[in-house]
């Protein structure tokens, strides 16, 4: 293989290669458990929330911005839904209202960014805390248990496969189509590539910024539904710090921080990588305190490795 060919191979399959490498390492470290079908399903299940949050994060980063509030949005939506379910609101309606709330939260982010002309980092840093605070206020700080079985059933299995993971794959397919085939997504790429040029080409940058943040929150809201149904309870502190994993998934998946570049498939692999690392650390009985240390190190290592291999064959 020539250098140029390897370069284009690595551009396409770098993230996948890193994921496979991690899987091989874990198979060697834990030959008995890691590569079993049950565990693979488990990885899928564990990755789902990361993947969905990362999809949301993707659209914020695509505009050269960021959304630090995805974890709080998931928790707030989950808590709202749980409270509605406790008040005997039918499951589908509760989920629908929950997702509408996520759109409102995204609109808050987008409108603040537009109105104050602030970097999304600042705005979502603030709203992240506010949304978390609202979650704690409405739940009075305690988890909401005893959710109906039909709601928990969302996180069940069909034909032996975890429904959330199937859902994540379906969502990936939809978003891959969305990012490749719709005018609105192309305009988001344009806006992320050069905001000023977008404005001077006829793209109303404010409307699209608002749209991207609503979409980001919506996907975080979807993650919130799955997260809550999987645990079977709404924890007001659920998803705390998950924005880090969402951002990490995007970076591992090759989304550019400068905006305008990135692919949904890469983000899917990024989310799976985070899920695989989490799973592996559990299997290897790494203490939960150490897990964070190892996780952070592995995030840096996987991005660095990808970049390193990519740059050694530059030109």
């Amino acid at each position: 293989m020539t250098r140029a060919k390897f370069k284009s191979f690595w551009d396409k399959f770098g993230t996948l290669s890193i994921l496979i490498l991690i899987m091989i390492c874990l198979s060697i470290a834990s030959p008995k458990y890691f590569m079993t079908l049950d565990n693979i399903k488990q990885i899928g299940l564990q990755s789902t929330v990361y993947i969905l949050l990362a999809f949301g994060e993707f659209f914020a980063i695509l505009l050269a911005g960021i959304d630090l509030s995805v974890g709080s949005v998931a928790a707030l939506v989950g808590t709202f839904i749980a409270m509605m379910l406790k008040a005997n609101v039918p499951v589908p309606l509760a989920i629908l209202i929950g997702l509408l709330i996520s759109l409102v939260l995204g609109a808050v982010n987008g409108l603040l960014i537009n109105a104050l002309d602030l970097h999304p980092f600042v705005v979502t840093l603030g709203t992240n805390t506010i949304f978390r605070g609202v979650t704690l206020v409405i739940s009075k700080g305690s988890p909401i248990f005893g959710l109906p079985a039909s709601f928990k059933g969302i996180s069940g299995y069909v034909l032996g496969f975890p429904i959330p993971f199937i859902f994540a794959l379906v969502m990936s397919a939809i978003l891959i189509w969305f990012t490749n085939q719709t005018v609105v997504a192309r305009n988001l790429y344009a806006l992320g590539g050069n905001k000023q040029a977008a404005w001077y080409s006829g793209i109303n940058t404010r409307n699209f910024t608002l749209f991207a943040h609503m979409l980001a929150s919506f996907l975080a809201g979807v993650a919130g539904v799955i997260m809550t149904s999987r645990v079977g309870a709404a924890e007001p502190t659920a998803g705390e710090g998950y924005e880090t994993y969402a951002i990490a998934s995007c970076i591992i998946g090759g989304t550019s921080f400068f905006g305008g570049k990135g692919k949904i498939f890469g983000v899917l692999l990024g989310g799976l990588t985070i899920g695989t690392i989490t799973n592996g650390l559990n299997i290897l009985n790494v203490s939960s305190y150490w897990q964070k240390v190892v996780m952070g190190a592995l995030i840096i290592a996987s991005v660095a490795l990808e970049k390193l291999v990519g740059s050694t064959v530059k030109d």
Partner: protein
Amino acid sequence: MEYLVEMKNMTMKFPGVVALNKVSFNLRPGEVHVLLGENGAGKSTLVKMLSGINKPTEGEIVLGGKTYSSLTPRESAENKIAIIYQELSVVDELTIAENLYVGKLPYKKIAGLKLVDYKYMNQEAQKYMDEIGLKKSPSTLVQDISISEKQQVEIAKALAAKARIIIMDEPTSSLSIEETEELFRIIRRLKENGIGIIYISHKLKEIKEIGDRVTVLKDGGYVDTKDVADLEVEDLIPMMVGRKITGNHLGDREQIEKDNEVIFKVENLTRKDKTARNISFEVRKGEILGFGGLIGAGRSECMEGIFGAKPITSGKIYLRGKELKITDTYSALKQGIAMVTENRRETGFFQNFNIWKETSVTTNLKKSTFGGMTGLLNEKAEREKAEEEVKALNTKCSGVDQMTVNLSGGNQQKVIIGKWLAVDSDVFIFDEPTKGIDVGAKSEIYNIMRQMANAGKAIIVVSSEMPELLKTCDRIIVFRNGEISGTLNSEDATEEKIMYAAVAVD
């Protein structure tokens, strides 16, 4: 010593390309030696050898009595060579004096600590600033001064480094006429002190005004070196491009007046920030309307208002008699208005897009509804449209998959024009359409504008280059301080008349 520097048979090969082929060049003390050539002719490659960035493949540089096969940036600085790039490299957050001494701040020792000696530094800086006539305090922050003053800071910095050779890369590209005059005055003073200046420029008129000798490069090869006194500016163009630029770009005045059909009309437009006030004008069929004036007179600001890019408080805009409702750039696009902006890199194209994606942005928006939120892409149609525009505009590229950012300035400009032609816009606003574009491509762009006007589109050209206005426009409107100060027909327009209207005389 006859020459400050002598470069002999400089050759630079990159894999697959010869960027420079056996080019010789020399510089005498106290002369301005102009380096002329189209983009990609090898001017930058040559001067980067002097600044130590490029390592020549072949050739030798005789400098300060020594012969080098290549220079390091350090050797370049030791030999008192300074370069002032088009994109100025002053640090906005520092003061003028700090900029002059950045990296080698004078210090005093107090209790064993090295502290910056501001008093001494400001005194010294003041000397160099006086030398070039920069009337500011040395402790002024650079972010608070104008672009031309920043450039003067760069020159003062070169003087502070005791430069004997100063390379200026298109120094007047963002200067107004007065600022250019000021720069020339400084350059003349530098010459008196025996400093040699290598002056890179596209602007042929300047060469006659400031140059002593001129060396022309073409496609990486050496064409000729001549004394400026012995030649006419027009002689240089064929040397640069190897073809004579012919053709009058004006429209058929009789036909324009006979048709007398007003395509586009603006009435009493005033921008919210008052940078353009009470602007009224009309563009007739087959006509190219020019806007002259000094930089900052409100021409671009007025156009941004028409295009919906910046808010206006009053003003009516008509296209073929029908009033348009423009609230943002999207509504402008939808109603047939196109704007080719002045700064391609900042507001013109997308660094992450290739040619076909670039071209189809506007088409997709125009077909779409709800501000560009609806609709599906059609890659095949997008590619075909882009290929069509590339062909129609003779854009030089390896194909529509090439990234716009990797094209030369002239071809980037063509891609941007193509993006608006693709949606069949009725009104084209060109803001400094040939800024930073080489002579050959310039001429092509003038032809394109004329063809568009003949095809019935309203063409508006904002330009700070008066010859450009005189050459291309059928009528010229002049701005002064945000208002229209005069209108000239092409027959009786001269540079003097434009200037007269552009500056307050009494």
